[in-house]
């Protein structure tokens, strides 16, 4: 099982989500913008991407578009995270939205749904 890639330009959120998922037994990698995310995915395809919508350098929709154009990443589930809900998201090809602020239970149930349970320790 590949890692869960957490992509957000806010380091505090990346760090907190990483630690909380690690506590549950998930393997995680992090990226602070879209370009870094593409680099991480080139190193190892993830099992799930938790992707922030608004980021510098390369935003969430741009990452999503690049993934859908890449045969190796096309089927990787992507959960888009954002504080601003918008109807225009509907055209995006992500697997789910996780509106901020979200709670730990929402996070874990979303991860469980798309990445399955953590590997047994």
């Amino acid at each position: 099982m590949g890692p869960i890639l957490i992509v957000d330009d806010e380091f505090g959120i990346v760090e907190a989500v990483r630690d909380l998922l690690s506590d549950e037994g998930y393997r995680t990698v992090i990226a602070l913008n879209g370009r870094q995310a593409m680099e991480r995915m080139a190193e190892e395809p993830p099992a799930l991407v938790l992707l922030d919508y608004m980021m510098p350098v390369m935003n969430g929709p741009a990452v999503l578009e690049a993934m859908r154009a890449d045969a190796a990443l096309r089927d990787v589930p992507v959960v888009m995270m954002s504080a601003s809900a918008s109807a225009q998201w509907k055209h995006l090809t992500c697997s789910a939205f996780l509106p901020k602020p979200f709670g730990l239970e929402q996070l874990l149930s979303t991860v469980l749904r798309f990445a399955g349970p953590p590997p047994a320790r």
Partner: protein
Amino acid sequence: MTDSGSRGGDERLATGVPGLDTVLRGGFRKGRTYMLMGLPGAGKTILANQVCYHHAARGGRILYLTLLAESHTELVGNLSSLSFFDGARLPESISYVSAFSVLEQGGLDALAELIRKEIKAQKATLLVLDGLVAAEEVAPSTQALKRFIHGLQVVTNLVGCTTLVLTTGGGKGLQAEHTMVDGLLILKQRTFGVRSLRELFVRKFRGSDYLLGRHSFEITKDGIVLYPRLETLVDLGLSPAQSASPRHAFGIAGLDRMLHGGVIPGSSTLVLGPSGAGKTLLGLCFLAEGARQGEKSHHFAFYDSPERMLAQTAGVGMALEPLIARGDLEVSFRPPMENLLDKLGAQLLVAIRERGVRRLFVDGLDALQKAAFRPTRVARFLAALVNECRIRGVTLLVSAETMTAFGPQLALPMQGTSMLAENLLYLRTAELNAELRRFICILKLRNSQYDHALRELLITEKGLEVGQPLSGAEQLMTGLARATGAAPEHRGK
């Protein structure tokens, strides 16, 4: 594609600290991080524990994590004398955990990990981090401390655990890292002369309004009791109440004639006069008349205990006990020594809002001045009280002692007083023909005609009487009257 649903909204965690939920408009916002800052002895630990036990009583689970070397046995022992303490909550609902050694050995990262894991293990809905100053001391840089606080906020918000961080501030005052949190409450103890005043003010409270300014508080056997400033509590959105009765009489025929029936309901009246002029008796007549009409009346006294007041009124033929017994006349008393102005404000609001008092006699103004640590506040306090009474239809009487018994000047006890009071009654003692005589006059009666005469006020075994205009004398207002030929009219109606 699915939407997992937002966790927004404005859910509150009630503090259970009397007055604080009013200041915070319902309590702390759930899942947010707040800092309580104050020097040792300011009341931070009591406040935080009070919130903990209140939250536990409502089914919450609390993780109380100390970063200080102080033992939990000692902490719990100190709390056990306070009424909110409930030992049965330990350790199931409230866990006291020491993070002192973790912080000392592993630094901020180890502390952050401990907090995260303990919150989840305890299923905590409220976290108290007591002694942030210890974390400040081990932090390699300010940036590292800021990162720790930010990380704490994000994690506790994610897990929906409201967090209170207690700190002294390290004696450095307010630093940037203290303002990163969702709210900052500062507790202070100030000394004015020989008296001390505890105050709380909300420096910051994200995502909600709150009551501005410094609110005084006490630490009692029940924990902290906060008294929001009266000026912040008056609901300016309400319209003045309409009264069924056109006038509120004093029950003194001569005075009621002077007032063309009485004062207007919901109005405020200042009763001025030197000591012994009859202000308290006049106010009590006003209350007794209201109580007789079935209007709940309240004597808010500072100088006369209920027993002494009843003895005085009995001496002038006023039987107040039956009115008190049937609940139409209330008497409350607090000696004018160590009062807090905002505590008095809270008591007045309870009388007005919760007990439905229609006539209120505050006896007297100088006790309010003594209760105020900042004398300039009293005028604003009174303005708030006058406004509160107006919109609730409560007729207010305030007695005020004039500085001098005799002399050519009328020195009002406080600047702006006459602007606040819609009506001014002036009681005077004057020497006339080697005899002290009391008289009463109306200096102001807003929106109404009134009798401009100076009339004699008689205090007899049968009660108070207002007699004929004092003729045959002049310069009565100076207190040093002078006969003008014919002997002045004297005594009675």
